[in-house]
């Protein structure tokens, strides 16, 4: 049924990550872990998959000797997310009205 849906986004944790990042400018790893209620290992793997797909940018640095990972969605990620929501809409054949804070030209 969902063979045409983007396989990168059609996963619970990856979809949750992208849905969070679509509404903010950038978020730290700890924020994503807390809000998705996931383990650090799982989250790290899924973030890498999204990064490899070009949907998010990941910046890794150190602050006060602690690792600090920051994620932000890319324009490709925004487009993929919008397409995913449209595809879900057509599959479910319902009137979906999700306010994702993005204008029609893809800008936040």
């Amino acid at each position, binding site marked *: *049924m*969902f063979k045409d849906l983007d396989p990168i986004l*059609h*996963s*619970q*944790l*990856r*979809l*949750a990550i992208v*849905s*969070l990042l*679509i*509404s*903010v*400018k*950038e*978020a*730290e790893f*700890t*924020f994503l872990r807390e*809000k*998705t*209620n*996931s383990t650090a290992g*799982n989250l790290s*793997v*899924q973030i890498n998959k999204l990064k490899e797909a070009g949907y998010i940018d990941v910046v890794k640095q150190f*602050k*006060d000797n602690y690792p600090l990972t920051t994620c932000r969605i890319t324009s490709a990620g925004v487009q993929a997310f919008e397409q995913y*929501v449209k595809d*879900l809409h057509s*599959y*479910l054949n319902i009137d*979906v009205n*999700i*306010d*994702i*804070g993005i204008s029609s030209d893809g800008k*936040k």
Partner: protein
Amino acid sequence: MENDKPISGQEGLHLIQKMIFIAKQEQRNDGVGWIWWGWMLFGASLFSLLNARYNWVSPYFFWDTLGVIALIYFIIRSIRYFSGARRKVVRTYTGELIHKLNIGFFVSLLFIMVAMNGVLNPMAGFPMLVNLYGFWILVYGTAMNFRPFIIGAFVAWAMGIAGLFVKTYEAVLLTHALAVLGGYIIPGHIANYTFRKLNREVGHFSV
């Protein structure tokens, strides 16, 4: 949350809505800052009004006290900000706009307060302050899409205009107090109530 758990279309939509709701909740203001700042300004206005009538202490005693409290608060905030003690784990476009707006507001506020201690008559100075409050509240309310602040901005401006035409210093202080009540305090309490209510809803929002 599991990494590759298969989800249905309905679950996917529900998950998207939940995560966007959670992210937006992070951007909301609990209104506490508005409530504290508002009540302090309101108190300073009313006590100054009573002081003008009964001559308890020097005319600017309550404003000076408020200024010292505000200065201490901003020094503590600055130290905590630059030391990274309250570093944000998420940054939003709205948050950055509000941050810059706050800087602009406090610089403008300081500008008018310095003028009021020199060339600007307090009879005109207080309406100028209220005018600035209205501008700040309107932009803030629009950025946060929170109607009580937008309405509060127009209440403040109405009081500011009234303050330009009243004849006594006590009346100017009263218009200032009413502007703060309508622009800061009431919207602040509504924001606080809404914030707590939405926080409870996040807890009940299950996938």
